[in-house]
């Protein structure tokens, strides 16, 4: 499956691959894996292949998918955001506090939810770009801080009873499609356009590819990074909104280890762990692979402990395959 070398004539696979990457920004392998996984699950479980189950998969994928979009932007710029899951939890609690404890109207509570995430991201970005602390450390610190803050604000308890219109965002089903799925797809399309077709997106990839080249070309690398971490936090806030409104409560323990799944989805989707390459469409395939995998394991009644192990294993395997291919491609 490795691409042929430049000297030999490319086969059908390589030509399709090149077109797919050039036009859709998707690596074909990820589609093959998704279809293979769907086929496997359909064979293993009689409940898998149905419209309602596909809706379940999409619904479960929506929260992780939004986080995976954040992970794609940050990773492809050569950064890392380990605080995604904790910021999701913090945002949900902040939103629930605004709506329930402070009795704020829905639009204010929604903005507060997303704003709390963006603020956490801004802090990450500020310490990384102005304090010269590695992103790994800063966002690992934020993983602890945001989770702790969520527990402090909520006093360690789940905040129940969101207003009706907020619950609609998580549980409404216009035309039979869950609202989180609609929001997720709209956000994914917008962010795909941003990453693949705007100067902001192209600069994001260039910074991850060769920071010095970007700087030489006049791109304000530090400011760009600051905006990326803020965006990442804001998307985690949106994921927190989807999660909280779906379960109709602000849960301070929501989203634990979600960064693991989100980063895995981004990497399976073809994002380069070290920056320079990434696409939201690719990540969507990656998120669906994770969604199908988790759904299938649920249907097969596999305990969630094993599911954690499966996700961790998939992450390491995906990076291994990517590294292996890169070594093959650079071989002369």
């Amino acid at each position, binding site marked *: 499956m490795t691409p042929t070398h*430049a000297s030999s004539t490319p086969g059908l696979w390589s030509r399709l691959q090149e077109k797919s990457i050039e036009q859709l920004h998707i690596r074909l392998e990820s589609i093959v894996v998704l279809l293979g996984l769907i086929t496997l699950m359909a064979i293993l479980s009689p409940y898998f292949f149905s419209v309602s189950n596909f809706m379940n998969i999409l619904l479960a994928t929506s929260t992780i998918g939004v986080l995976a979009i954040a992970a794609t932007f940050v990773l492809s710029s050569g950064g890392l955001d380990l605080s995604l899951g904790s910021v999701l939890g913090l945002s949900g609690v902040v939103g629930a506090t605004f709506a329930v404890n402070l009795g704020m109207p829905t639009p204010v509570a929604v903005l507060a939810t997303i704003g709390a995430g963006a603020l956490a991201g801004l802090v990450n970005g500020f310490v990384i770009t102005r304090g010269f602390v590695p992103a790994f450390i800063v966002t690992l610190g934020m993983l602890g801080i945001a989770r702790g803050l969520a527990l402090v604000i909520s006093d360690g308890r789940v905040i129940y009873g969101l207003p009706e219109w907020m619950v609609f965002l998580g549980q409404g089903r216009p035309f039979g499609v869950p609202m989180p799925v609609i929001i997720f797809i709209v956000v994914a399309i917008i962010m795909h*356009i941003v990453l693949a*077709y705007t*100067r902001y997106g192209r600069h994001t990839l*260039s910074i991850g*590819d*060769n920071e010095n080249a970007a700087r030489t*070309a*006049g791109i304000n690398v530090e400011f760009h990074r600051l905006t990326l971490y803020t965006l990442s936090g804001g998307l985690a806030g949106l994921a927190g909104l989807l999660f909280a409104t779906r379960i109709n409560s602000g849960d301070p323990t929501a989203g634990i280890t979600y960064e693991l799944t989100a980063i895995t989805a981004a990497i399976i989707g073809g994002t*380069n762990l070290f920056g320079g390459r990434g696409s939201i469409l690719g990540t969507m395939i990656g998120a669906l692979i994770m969604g199908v995998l988790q759904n299938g394991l649920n249907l097969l009644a596999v305990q969630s402990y094993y599911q954690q192990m499966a996700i961790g294993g998939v992450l390491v395997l995906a990076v291994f395959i990517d590294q292996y291919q890169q070594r093959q491609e650079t071989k002369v």
Partner: protein
Amino acid sequence: MSLLSLTGIKKSFGAVSVLHGVDLNVDAGEVVGLIGDNGAGKSTLMKIVTGIYQADEGSITLNDESVLDLTPGARRARGIEMIYQDLALAKQQDVASNIFLGREPVRNILGVKIVDRGRMKQEAQVMIDRLGAKLPSITRPVGSFSGGQQQSVAIARALTFDPKIVIMDEPTAALAVREVQSVLDLIRQLKSQGISVILISHRLNDVLSVTDRIVVLRQGTAAANLKTSDTSMSEIVSAIVGGGDVAEAAAHEARG
């Protein structure tokens, strides 16, 4: 009249004095080789020209106008372009993305500024053709290209700034032998389009084959200024190492 004129350039880093008053002139369309031993100050001098370093003393004029007070960006806008040793290429991006990095053309679609890929590819192709460079595909990541092909991408990018003078610091140092020739052809191509080139290189044969004039930096000054057609390898080498130390000169030549 010179295009670029340096007079009495001095530069020290702390207690280390690197340049003690260097004079250098480059005419329009002229290719000048700048040579000298490691640490002679060639890269430092060129960074002073592009504005990355400030000279302690001396003047720099482009078309008789001083550029000393200009930022690197403003000097670039006036036509001083430098191609760095590491080429400053984003290796996973394609040719067009690299050539237009930081100034991608955009189209307005429903109020959103979308990068105009079609125009980028087309204009990138024009630049590549203008250089006569051969690339496998302009839509492939430049990291998959050979060193010489990457060099042509960097030069094509420089061309899009409409430079009057292009400075190249060791462009052939990391190249396979057959690729060196194509880079030398690119330099001739620039010259034929009226663009001046300053070439820094340790490969004296290349310098002899492509330059009009050769300036030797030694002990912080321009120790020799030789017309390429009137000089020889041994004259250059003895200017690099200083005086008539023939044994040392031979050793240098052997090192390449």
